[in-house]
Each structure stands twice: as structure tokens, then as C-alpha cells.
């Protein structure tokens, strides 16, 4: 291998060197980055990683960027939090949250993939970058491009949450709202990428972009003291994250950084857009596209590009997939915030609600070490909570009124006798 990494077809294995390309022109299958694993044995060691920055760039030797690449933002290395209170509520005993709700700079795991994609864009000499996005990616591209001095064209579905629109425009990005769902936006992006000499992070730069997702897996392993969890629950939109975390674990095993272990992968979707979980549950090995209808808009991809690979990752690992209703998603957002102090967006609600169901159905053992991938921040989907939280009338600024309020609270608490345990068979209700 001439370089430490290069593109290879995921199906026929043909090699393509390094170029802005995502599709094999022999078998029309997606390309993926492969590494010179012999070279990586020297550069990707626990000691070398420990000397690196406290960010995802400590794993630079296994990311497709040049050796002299200097990152502009300390993306990644987000907290891995023990979640004992949530665990108790859902019948778990050894539960962790990988909290990318606080990933820098734009508060979702997409900052990871974008930082790798933009490094590739600069390497290939693009002066303009773009993406098709359900929101988080748009935010990440807009912010990341500013720090590299790149121009942007960002395509989103017209009905995207206002917070995600503003969080893109504020960086001066050119935001193009498209009539229709994400799958239409995505198709148009493929056409645009063929017409213009731009770096579309999730089209022609996609193989590089997707590698950024691996850092979620590397970090979990390192934060667990270089061991792997028993299970991981991952939200699925295009299906890339779950397959790349699996790739990360496999690479760590191959390079001897962790002991071999069969980690079970569990995929989480909203019932209103569940092409991957539907396939897993029905035993199908291919995706039937769906028209998304869910509040979890960051996961609303009806024709997931990595769907078949996600199915394979889940099935081969001995895992499972589930999907939950919009009501369950909102309840789970509140539950996670109330129990662990983590405010996630709708996608994190999906992951949390699915995890609760997997425990309730015995798909995940109580004592297993299980990690939930929380991928985005609740401040971006505030509309999901509209009218869901009690709004109390204001009281006068007098101590007596405050004391009356506290007394009323205590009386209410006494009458309620504490809140009932949460996990109910087959559902996730408050």
C-alpha cells in the first residue's frame, strides 16, 4: 500500500487509491477506507494514543488524514458516564452513556465525521463543501467549514427543526431548503456532486467521512480501560455509525489493543422510520424503503445507504433491533434528563427507549456491561418537548408564598407515594 490508507470496494475489493469517490465503477458498490495494518501496529499503540491530545485526534494514526494534519478543533473524547439511576429504572445493573450530546463544536457525533471529511476536502483541494443533512450534519459542516475557510452549500429538508436551521445559518453557510424528505434531498445531492467540483461530505467524500464514526468505538474501549462492552445500543439513520463502531472494535482487536470479545450490537430506530429494524425483525437481508413520519427527524432516512451493512452487523454480532413510538421517544428524553442529567435530542430518546425495551424483553441481560450511544443534544429539538413540561404560575417575591409552594409540593409527593417504576412490559411509558 503506497499510503497508510486507501479506498477499497466493500464488495469486490478493488483498490482505488485516495480520491474523492464513493462508488466502485465495476460493481457500483460503496467504497471504504482500508489501512496498512502492519504499519498501524507500530503507530497505533496504547502508549502512542496516551501521548495524543484529549480529543478524537489521539486516534489519528487510524483515521484517513495525512500524517502532518493539524486539527483545528478538539472534537470528540466525550464523557462515558455510568448511568446507575437510569439503569435502576429500566432493570439494568451495568449501564453507561457515551455522551456525544456534548461533542464539540456543534453538540452531536456528526462533528466527528465532518472533521475527517473536511480534512479530506482540503487534501483534495476543494474550496467548497456541502452535504445533505437531517440537521446535525448541517450544523457540523457549517461550523467546521468556517474554521478551514471553506465555502458551503448545505441541503436540508424544508421542514427541519428551527434550531437546526439557525444553528447552520449562524455560521454564514449557504443553506438550501428542499421541498421533500431527506431521501429526496439526498438524491439531489448525488446529482449535484456529479455536476460540480465540490466536496460533498456524505457523497463523494463519504468513505473518509464515515471513518470519523469509528472514534466513538475507540473512545468507549479506552474509557473502559481498554476493554470492550458486552452490548452497545446505537441509533440508526443511514446505518453507518453502528457499522463503523463495529469496525473500530474489530481494528482494536486486530491490532492487539483489546482482548477479543464478541460485542453484541443493538440498533435503535423510530417506528415512524424503521427500515433497518423492520428488516432485522422480519429476517430480511435487504431494505424496503419507507416514507419517514416521526419526530426523530435526525433519524428520518427512509432509504438508508448503509442499511444492509447495519443489518449484517446486528445479525452477525448476535444483537437485535427495535423501534419505538414518538410518545416513547419524548418520555425517554425526559427520563434520561431526570435520571442522569443528560439532555439529548430525539435520537437519544430513541436509543434510551429502545434500550428500556430490550431490557424489558430480556434481549439484554441485566448484569451485562451495556453502552448507549447518545448522539445529539436536546437543545436542538426543543420543539419535541412543547407542552410536555408543567408550567407553574409565577408567585410573588415573598418568603411566605415560597413556603406555601414547598408545602404544596410535599403534600403532592405524599399523595403520589413516589413515582412508579418505569419499564412496563413492551412499552416505555411514564
Amino acid at each position: 500500500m503506497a499510503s497508510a490508507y486507501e479506498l477499497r470496494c466493500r464488495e469486490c475489493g478493488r483498490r482505488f487509491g485516495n480520491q474523492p469517490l464513493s462508488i466502485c465503477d465495476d460493481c457500483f458498490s460503496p467504497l471504504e477506507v482500508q489501512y496498512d495494518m502492519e504499519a498501524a501496529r507500530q503507530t497505533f499503540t496504547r502508549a502512542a494514543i496516551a501521548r495524543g491530545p484529549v480529543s478524537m485526534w489521539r486516534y489519528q494514526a487510524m483515521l484517513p488524514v495525512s500524517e502532518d494534519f493539524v486539527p483545528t478543533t478538539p472534537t470528540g473524547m466525550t464523557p462515558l458516564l455510568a448511568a446507575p439511576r437510569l439503569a435502576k429504572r429500566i432493570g439494568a445493573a451495568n449501564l453507561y452513556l457515551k455522551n456525544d450530546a456534548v461533542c464539540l463544536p456543534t453538540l452531536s457525533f456528526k462533528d466527528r465525521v465532518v472533521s475527517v471529511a473536511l480534512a479530506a476536502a482540503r487534501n483534495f483541494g476543494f474550496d467548497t463543501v456541502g452535504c445533505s443533512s437531517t440537521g446535525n450534519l448541517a450544523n457540523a459542516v457549517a461550523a467546521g467549514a468556517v474554521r478551514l475557510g471553506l465555502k458551503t452549500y448545505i441541503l436540508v429538508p424544508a421542514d427541519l427543526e428551527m434550531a437546526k436551521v439557525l444553528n447552520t445559518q449562524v455560521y454564514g453557510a449557504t443553506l438550501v431548503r428542499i421541498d421533500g424528505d431527506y431521501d429526496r434531498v439526498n438524491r439531489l445531492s448525488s446529482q449535484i456532486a456529479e455536476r460540480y467540483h465540490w466536496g460533498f461530505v456524505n457523497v463523494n467524500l463519504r468513505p473518509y467521512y464515515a471513518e470519523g464514526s469509528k472514534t466513538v468505538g475507540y473512545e468507549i474501549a479506552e474509557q473502559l480501560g481498554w476493554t470492550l462492552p458486552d452490548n452497545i445500543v446505537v441509533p440508526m439513520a443511514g446505518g453507518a455509525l453502528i457499522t463503523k463502531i463495529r469496525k473500530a472494535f474489530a481494528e482494536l482487536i486486530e491490532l492487539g489493543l483489546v482482548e477479543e470479545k464478541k460485542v453484541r450490537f443493538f440498533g435503535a430506530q423510530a417506528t415512524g422510520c424503521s427500515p433497518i429494524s423492520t428488516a432485522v425483525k422480519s429476517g430480511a437481508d435487504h431494505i424496503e424503503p419507507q416514507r419517514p413520519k416521526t419526530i426523530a427527524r435526525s433519524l428520518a432516512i427512509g432509504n438508508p445507504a448503509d442499511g444492509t451493512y447495519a443489518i449484517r452487523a446486528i445479525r452477525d454480532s448476535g444483537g437485535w433491533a427495535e423501534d419505538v413510538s414518538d410518545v416513547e421517544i419524548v418520555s425517554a428524553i425526559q427520563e434520561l434528563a431526570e435520571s442522569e442529567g443528560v439532555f439529548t435530542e430525539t435520537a437519544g430518546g430513541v436509543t434510551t427507549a429502545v434500550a428500556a425495551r430490550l431490557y424489558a424483553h430480556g434481549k439484554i441481560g441485566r448484569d451485562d456491561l451495556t453502552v448507549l450511544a447518545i448522539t445529539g443534544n436536546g437543545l436542538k429539538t426543543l420543539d419535541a418537548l412543547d407542552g410536555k413540561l408543567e408550567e407553574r404560575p409565577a408567585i410573588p417575591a415573598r418568603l411566605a408564598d415560597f413556603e406555601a409552594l414547598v408545602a404544596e409540593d410535599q403534600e403532592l409527593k405524599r399523595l403520589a407515594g413516589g413515582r412508579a417504576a418505569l419499564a412496563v412490559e413492551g412499552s416505555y411509558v411514564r
Partner: protein
Amino acid sequence: MSVKVVLPSAFEKHTSGTREIQSQAANLVQLIAEIESSFPALKPHLRDADGKIRRFINFYVNDEDIRFLGNDKYEFKDGDEILVIPSIAGG
């Protein structure tokens, strides 16, 4: 009756650079047969070992995924624009 078919750049090296054709095909099955006979070099690349069209190749009719229109059962209409996109990106 005629439909316009837009081929992706990934097909170019097998179609001598042709990116767009007019077709008289009445449905997807006929269209694929016509593409294969017009571009014999493309034929072996379009199908997998079982002779099925490779699963990463997507067909759209006037911006709509043909699978939402009935797939093979959809009857092309005069003036339809058929878009072929291999291995959709995104996510």
C-alpha cells in the same frame, strides 16, 4: 412513447461516456434489457453472481424511488425521466 434515462458517471467507462438515452421501454424490466443490449460492456457489471440487478443500484422516476411506484409493475409514461443512481450516499 419515449422516456429519458439519465445514467450515473460511474457507468461512463462502460457506456463510452454516454450519460443520457431516450428509451421506448414500457417498464423497468424492459429498460434494463435495453440498457444491457445498448451497452454490452455494462451488462456484466449490472448484475451480481445470481444474475440479479445489484442491490446498490437505485432507479427513480421523476424524482420518486421506483419502489414506491410498484417497481417492475410501474408502467412508464411518455416523458418520464428515469434517473439511475448507484449506491446512494447520505446518512
